[in-house]
């Protein structure tokens, strides 16, 4: 069953704007990861946040985790055309298999 679900499914913004994508999940997790996929390519790991963390930063990326709401958000600040890609969250269930379950992704288009 799908554990993480991203929304929106698609997001279209102008270069320089911020992009926010959300991920909701159903069961308690050990950690949550965000990945990026350029069209027709493999996924690239962006950032991991553990269940006892609330916020992490990496360059222009900011990830938050709210375990009470079972949700996470990925914020890309000052977006660039090169940020155009699909973004996936992946969750590992607490007490379950370590293998993460991927959502269906948010397709982000950044217009130059």
């Amino acid at each position, binding site marked *: 069953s*799908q554990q993480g679900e991203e929304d929106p499914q698609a997001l279209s913004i102008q270069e320089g704007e911020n992009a926010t994508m959300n991920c909701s999940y159903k069961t308690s997790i050990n*950690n949550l*990861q965000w*990945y990026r996929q350029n069209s*027709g*390519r*493999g*996924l*690239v*790991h962006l950032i*991991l946040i553990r269940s006892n963390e609330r916020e992490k930063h990496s360059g222009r990326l900011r990830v938050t985790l709210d375990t009470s709401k079972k949700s996470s958000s990925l914020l890309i600040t000052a977006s660039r055309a090169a940020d155009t890609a699909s973004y*996936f969250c*992946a969750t*590992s269930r607490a007490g379950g298999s*370590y*293998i*993460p*379950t*991927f*959502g*269906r*992704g948010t397709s982000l288009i950044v217009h130059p």
Partner: protein
Amino acid sequence: SQTIHQWPATLVQPVGSPLSLECTVEGTSNPNLYWYRQAAGRGLQLLFYSVGIGQISSEVPQNLSASRPQDRQFILSSKKLLLSDSGFYLCAWSTGTGVGYTFGSGTRLTVV
């Protein structure tokens, strides 16, 4: 540094023909290896994973099989392809904790 190689990049095969996709990892030992399938507009579906040579776990019953003849080699096979086997196949590896997956560049399989 660790690298993952997956080939071929694209493949067009007739229904009923056999399939063999290969994935190799360099620069690490005893990796956990995974095969995923991604249908258009969908998330990643875990097909098989392996924690060691000769150890294969199947997540989805289907006409595909996987083998791990060497520590850093993972092969996805089928004896007879179905139309429904079309999709984007991704190989990945991780350490034993399952965080920070590294993905190959993928194989676009079209069964005609």
